[in-house]
């Protein structure tokens, strides 16, 4: 059974992959999970649970805790505070069946549910007797200062801590106009007295019941939106307008089963606008490229499948939205300036085992202008002459020449408005793992054309040949140099013709020459096949990203979570972090693409370490 039997797009994520990702983020951006008074950033080893920070974070000297306010000592004078910390030590997700963490007896994970596990630690400063004595001595001094109003921080390296483990089970239902979230059960492990546990659990359930409808509303609003991608817009890439909605054709959407969360989506609306203006990849070439094998077994961390029908929607959007526009001048003495604007029309796409086939695709050449230019050598007609004028110096007259511009001759040929048919185009998709200079690794998706492409350039060569022949027949008349100037420019006239012929290397058979030109210079004949294969398979990736993939960029500011805004230390939270927090990167261990009769499937695994 195909993955996309009841939808256009199938997305499945595996709990183990999500948990590996969370672990990697925790290691590389510990301040997202650890909160403490700013003094603890100088002594992070005294917090409740050791922070497992990545080597790059420690090497950069990044703060491990997001600064929060200290806890006031009630009734103290002057106002005194003690350090505190709050840590999320562990956070895991489990899709049915339960295999990512052990659940307490009071709660269970049922079919189509997902479970969340969180372990937190809370610590509060407790000065040792020596620390307290020393502090009280200093208080006496402060009290002698009239109107002393400063807030005093009680320095201590002793924190008393406790930990709590939370378990929750939830369920979710999505449809074209449905978003339903439920907190099924909530359990705090081993909290006593039992009455307090009951009280907290009841409160959490109450909060969930009141908060979830708001989240459902937000989800619904987001689902019916037509999105503009990419966000933020990238002028060099395609602009995509897309509306995707959950499929109603499956009993459980999303389905929480087989340790995966499976989403079934349909493409409701899709448009694309993209002008391709680069003929060949001009960027650096990889030093090595390999097809990296998968090392894990079982379902991938992420699986995305696009059905043949779904891909047809994408293909049609691409046909309507993609335009190519090339303009350049090549050569020096003999130049060819070309301006080519093409649009795609028609065409159908089908999936076969291991390739996709595009048939009856037309390319409409909206603009097809080629201007041949020749820089004829400058021919002096009137020489410069200098005259010595006694006592006054020398004065020189200017010389005058023919063919002082470049190009001196230009032959514009405009054959705009014809249509070429791409008879059959077959291609597979490949993923390459490439290494570039400087040790940069990338995952690259390439189109791998399989059959020689046949583009029918209807009579293009004949048209250009006719126009050039016409020009050469008339070149003598076109020059129309007066006979009285013949003596002066006779040599020049011969030179003009010779130069044009030499520069263009025009043989007697103009048509053959044009065909050669199209192959050698513009690659518009049979050699276009080699060029297309090289272009897609080697030079231009359909999509590429660096490995490891940056998911959170470098930043010199702490992340502000609105829900925690009252906890943050108002001064320390806004300070510039120097050096900045290192970026969070995910190692992409494997990506594979396959095409079968029904769908295109992309599978990816996240690595365990970075």
């Amino acid at each position: 059974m195909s993955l996309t039997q009841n939808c256009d797009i199938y997305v499945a994520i595996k709990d183990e992959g999500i948990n590996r990702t969370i672990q990697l983020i925790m290691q590389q951006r510990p301040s997202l999970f650890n909160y403490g008074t700013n003094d603890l950033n100088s002594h992070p080893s005294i917090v409740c649970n050791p922070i497992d920070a990545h080597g790059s974070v420690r090497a950069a000297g990044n703060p491990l805790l997001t600064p929060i306010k200290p806890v006031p000592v009630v009734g103290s004078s002057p106002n005194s505070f003690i350090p505190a910390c709050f840590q999320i030590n562990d956070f895991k997700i489990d899709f049915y069946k339960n295999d990512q963490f052990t659940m307490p007896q009071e709660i269970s994970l049922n079919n189509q549910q997902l479970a969340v596990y969180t372990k937190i630690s809370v610590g509060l400063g407790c000065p040792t007797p020596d620390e307290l004595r020393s502090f009280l001595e200093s208080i006496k001094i402060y009290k002698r200062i009239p109107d002393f109003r400063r807030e005093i921080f009680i320095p201590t390296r002793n924190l008393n801590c406790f930990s709590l483990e939370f378990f929750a089970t939830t369920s979710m239902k999505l449809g074209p106009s449905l978003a339903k979230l439920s907190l099924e059960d909530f359990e705090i492990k081993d909290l006593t007295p039992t009455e307090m546990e009951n009280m907290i659990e009841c409160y959490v359930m109450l909060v969930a019941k009141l908060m979830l409808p708001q989240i459902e509303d937000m989800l619904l609003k987001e689902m019916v939106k037509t999105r503009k991608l990419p966000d933020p817009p990238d002028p060099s890439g395609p602009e995509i307008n897309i509306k995707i909605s959950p499929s109603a054709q499956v009993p459980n959407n999303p389905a929480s089963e087989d340790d995966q969360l499976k989403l079934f989506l349909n493409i409701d609306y899709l448009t694309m606008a993209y002008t391709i203006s680069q003929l060949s990849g001009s960027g650096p070439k990889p030093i090595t490229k390999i097809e990296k094998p998968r090392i894990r077994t079982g379902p991938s961390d992420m699986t995305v499948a696009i059905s043949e029908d779904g891909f047809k929607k994408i293909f049609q959007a691409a046909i309507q939205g993609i335009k190519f526009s090339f303009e350049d001048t090549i050569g020096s003495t003999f130049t060819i300036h070309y301006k080519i604007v093409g649009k795609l029309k028609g065409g159908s796409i089908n999936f076969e085992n291991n390739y996709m086939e595009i048939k009856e695709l037309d390319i409409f050449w909206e603009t097809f202008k080629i201007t041949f230019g020749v820089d004829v050598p400058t021919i002096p007609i009137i020489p410069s002459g200098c005259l010595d004028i006694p006592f006054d110096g020398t004065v020189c007259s200017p010389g005058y020449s023919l063919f002082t511009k470049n190009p001196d001759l230009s032959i514009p040929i405009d054959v705009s408005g014809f249509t070429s048919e791409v008879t059959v185009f077959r291609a597979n998709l490949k993923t390459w793992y490439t290494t570039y200079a400087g040790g940069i690794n990338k995952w690259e998706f390439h189109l791998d054309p399989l059959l020689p492409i046949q583009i029918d350039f209807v009579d293009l060569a004949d048209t250009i040949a006719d126009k050039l022949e016409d020009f050469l027949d008339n070149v003598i008349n076109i020059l129309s140099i007066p006979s009285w100037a013949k003596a002066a420019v006779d040599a020049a006239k011969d030179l003009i013709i010779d130069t044009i012929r030499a520069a263009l290397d025009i043989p007697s058979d103009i048509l053959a020459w044009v065909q050669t030109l199209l192959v050698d210079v513009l690659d518009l004949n049979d050699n276009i096949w080699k060029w297309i294969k090289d272009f897609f398979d080697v030079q231009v990736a359909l999509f590429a990203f660096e490995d490891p993939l940056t998911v959170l960029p470098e930043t010199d500011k702490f992340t502000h979570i609105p829900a925690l805004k009252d906890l943050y230390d108002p001064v320390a939270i806004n300070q510039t972090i120097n050096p900045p927090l290192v970026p969070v990167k995910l190692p992409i261990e494997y990506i594979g693409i396959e095409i079968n009769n029904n769908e295109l499937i992309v599978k990816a695994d996240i690595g365990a370490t970075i």
Partner: protein
Amino acid sequence: MTTLNFNLNRSLFEKKDYDSKFVSVLQSLHHRFVNEGHYTCNIYNRNRLLKTINISVGKENKALTNNLDINEILRNRYDHYNLSTNNYFGFYVSDGFMQYSISIYSSKSKQEIEFDSSNLRMNDIFCVSFIKPGKYIVENRLVSARMLVEVFPFDKRSVRPKKIEVKDKFESERIELMQTETLFFIVNNEKNNQIVVRYTDEQSDTKDSK
């Protein structure tokens, strides 16, 4: 028929008449700067100011002569030129059918006119290159002097520049030149001068090829 864009410099073959009020193809104007200083030079076409350039004249300047193509001046952003004192500064047009008038005055005051193409003065030079064979009447309109220039077809002799001094009258009443040779009219009087060269002898013109 295929359209052909052909930059032949056709103006060279269509030029028949010359007027020292202007700089255009095959005719140039040269002025000798005697006094050191900074000068402002305006270039006009049909009384429309096209460009202003600055000319610094001084003994320390190395340039002994400076011939500027007005086409280049108009294309370039560069607008400052140097000349060594007592040397000639010239203007010409390399191709095209445009004609330009020139006026140069001291940068200190617009009243101190140094050169005006409409009134050539002592030591100014008007250079004319002849490409079309035939007879030409030369007139100095402001002093009512006339002479004849007879241009013979090119015969592969070496081309040499010729000069005519322009006093109250022209130095000679008649001069023979070969096609493509240049004639320097050197003003040597205290009056205003305007030299006009007009092609007259259609009879000796061989027929143009079609």
